[in-house]
């Protein structure tokens, strides 16, 4: 029987069977998809949403913001007195609910120095009556401090009240909006430098791992398999050893009177100990060690499949070793090098733990700044914006990796 003789029913039947099979396969995969979606994808998605949506202030003082809507903040007049009055009333209310500090923090972020002003005024407002504020709340407020006459402050209040904002993304590029709404450079230039520094550290690590992994992988690929298998264990054991264990050992080695300094001193090679721990060099050394297996393994699997007779042929024909190596062997290992390099680069650019422990000030990377804004400066929105940029970079690199190597070809161990 050949295909041409299939009846319509038979085709439909086989199609139905195929569809049934597809549904069945999907059913197998569905639990994990749902699980990953709930436990992993949605948390990240909601965090990224946070980088543009920040409704705190608009929830705290909705009526004042409604009054401020028609005020022209590019001009040089104070907001209308109705807005000031409404603000005084809402601030009094916040003070009673003990929420004035929240407003103060948000406005202070845009106009440093206004936190104590808002909080002290809130304390005073608490002691006045609502009737008085409804009568002339604007002049009461303005009488508390001459800082309330500052138009920049009101601009900050109005801007803080926008629930959707691009300001965190602008900050990640060291930009801001001026009072007229135009984009300009911020006074403090910090994040672009930080990205560049992280990229530089990741590049150093990638180069170092490649440099160290290449000869070892070559040796392992060409050695007799019995020896190679035994030596492979020495590559895999560090790979399996806890990240924190490896980081701990680098502290023991690199600290001021640690293993390295004391052995160099007792050998008489140096007089004064090196300052290595808590430096950028410490981050690079420790991470090179930690990520080295990720370079060795892909290189090894590519080199393993290269027929050694090519090089042997060249050598036997009288080629000198180094040119022969560069011209013949090296090009054949490019897929392994690029796979390993991408993998190491992807992992290192988002690294947190090792820089946090051994890196000191100089060895911090993007992840550490994200953690700083999460844990110390309370600027979660900025952390989310920085995180989404990092994520975009990783996804782009991952896409290249998929093109080059194929995600389905990832092998473990």
């Amino acid at each position: 029987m050949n295909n041409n003789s299939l009846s319509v029913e038979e085709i439909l039947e086989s199609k139905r069977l195929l569809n049934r099979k597809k549904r069945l396969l999907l059913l197998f995969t569905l639990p994990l998809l749902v699980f990953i979606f709930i436990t992993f994808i949605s948390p990240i998605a909601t965090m990224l949403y946070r980088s543009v949506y920040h409704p705190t202030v608009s929830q705290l003082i909705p009526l004042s913001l409604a009054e401020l809507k028609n005020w022209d903040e590019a001009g040089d007049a104070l907001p209308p007195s109705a807005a000031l009055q409404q603000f005084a009333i809402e601030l009094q209310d916040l003070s009673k609910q003990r929420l004035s500090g929240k407003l103060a923090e948000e406005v202070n972020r845009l106009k440093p120095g206004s936190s104590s002003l808002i909080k002290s005024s809130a304390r005073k407002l608490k002691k006045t009556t609502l009737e008085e504020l409804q009568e002339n709340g604007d002049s009461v407020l303005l009488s508390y401090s001459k800082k309330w006459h500052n138009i920049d402050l009101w601009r900050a209040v109005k801007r803080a009240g926008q629930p959707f904002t691009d300001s965190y993304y602008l900050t990640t590029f060291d930009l801001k909006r001026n009072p007229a709404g135009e984009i300009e450079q911020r006074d403090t230039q910090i994040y672009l430098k930080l990205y560049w520094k992280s990229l530089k550290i990741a590049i150093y690590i990638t180069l170092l791992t490649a440099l160290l992994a290449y000869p070892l992988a070559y040796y392992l690929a060409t050695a007799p398999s019995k020896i190679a298998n035994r030596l492979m264990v020495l590559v895999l054991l560090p790979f399996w050893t806890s990240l924190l264990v490896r980081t701990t050992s680098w502290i023991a080695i690199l600290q001021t009177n640690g293993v390295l300094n004391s052995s160099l001193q007792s050998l008489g090679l140096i007089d004064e100990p090196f300052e290595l721990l808590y430096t950028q060099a410490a981050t690079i050394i420790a991470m090179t060690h930690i990520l080295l297996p990720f370079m060795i393994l892909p290189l090894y699997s590519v080199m393993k499949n290269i027929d050694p007779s090519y090089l042997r042929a060249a050598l036997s024909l009288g080629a000198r070793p180094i040119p022969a190596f560069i011209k013949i062997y090296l090009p054949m290992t490019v897929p392994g090098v690029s796979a390993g390099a991408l993998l190491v680069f992807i992992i290192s650019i988002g690294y947190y733990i090792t820089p946090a422990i051994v890196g000191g000030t100089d060895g911090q990377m993007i992840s550490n700044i994200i953690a700083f804004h999460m844990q110390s400066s309370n600027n979660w929105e900025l952390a989310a914006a920085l995180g989404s940029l990092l994520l975009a970079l990783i996804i782009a690199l991952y896409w290249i990796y998929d093109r080059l190597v194929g995600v389905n070809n990832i092998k473990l161990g």
Partner: protein
Amino acid sequence: MKSYPKYFTFWHILAHYGLRFCSLLVLAFLMLPILVIIPLSFNVEPFFSFTEGMLALEPEAYSLKWYAEIWHDDKWLLAIKNSFIIGIFATLIATVLGTLAAIGLSNPAMPWQKLWMAILLSPMIVPLIITAAGMYFFYSQLNLAGSYLGVILAHAALGTPFVLITVNAALSGFDYSLVNASLGLGARPTMTFFKVIMPLIRPGVISGALFAFITSFDEVVVVLFLAGPEQRTIPRQMFSGLREQINPTILAVATLLIIISAMLLFTIEYLRARSERIQSGELDS
């Protein structure tokens, strides 16, 4: 002296030995930092460095007291207990879900296979700090932050890609006509799964489970953000020890962890060798 091909000059031999020497150096760079911890954990003094007594091999310079310290410190005991509870439950979830999904995904008839794969492997690719930050907010709203369940679910999510990869690899040579044959002979799907598919992929499932376990066992960033004081794990305890109060108890714990990793490594290698033999048909069942 080993004999070399006739065309080998002095330079060839030098390159040969140079390569060997470099490889040994790199291997030393890989292993020494790990080995150095072990003797340091027996240091009598509360330092991270070799004392003169240790170098002179005086018995008094060595002690087991940091190991004893672990057993007398409630925080370390709690951390050890937590690491195993969280690791085991996370591994169970990751292994069951990951194995099922791999069976679906490895079949060429699966629609949008590449897309699903990319999504399901993403927990392995996304930097942990982003995962941790996102989970922190999201799980807090669900009242899962600071609970065992929260950490277990998070770690299960991080472990699934590894199960997926290893089981996928085990299934790569799988002949799906066996399933059809089994079903055709009247076996029910569950029976087909346990009697036909499972025996063939078992090594893949187990090594995937071990990967998932070590992922959870070694994970600290998510724990740092998500876990409360009651869910402190070993790495979390080490992290705060390194940041706050460096003392050799950490080295003692590190030594124990090295032993655990070595055991896991040998199990995995054994399983891999076995799985290769199964796939090449040298071994029955």
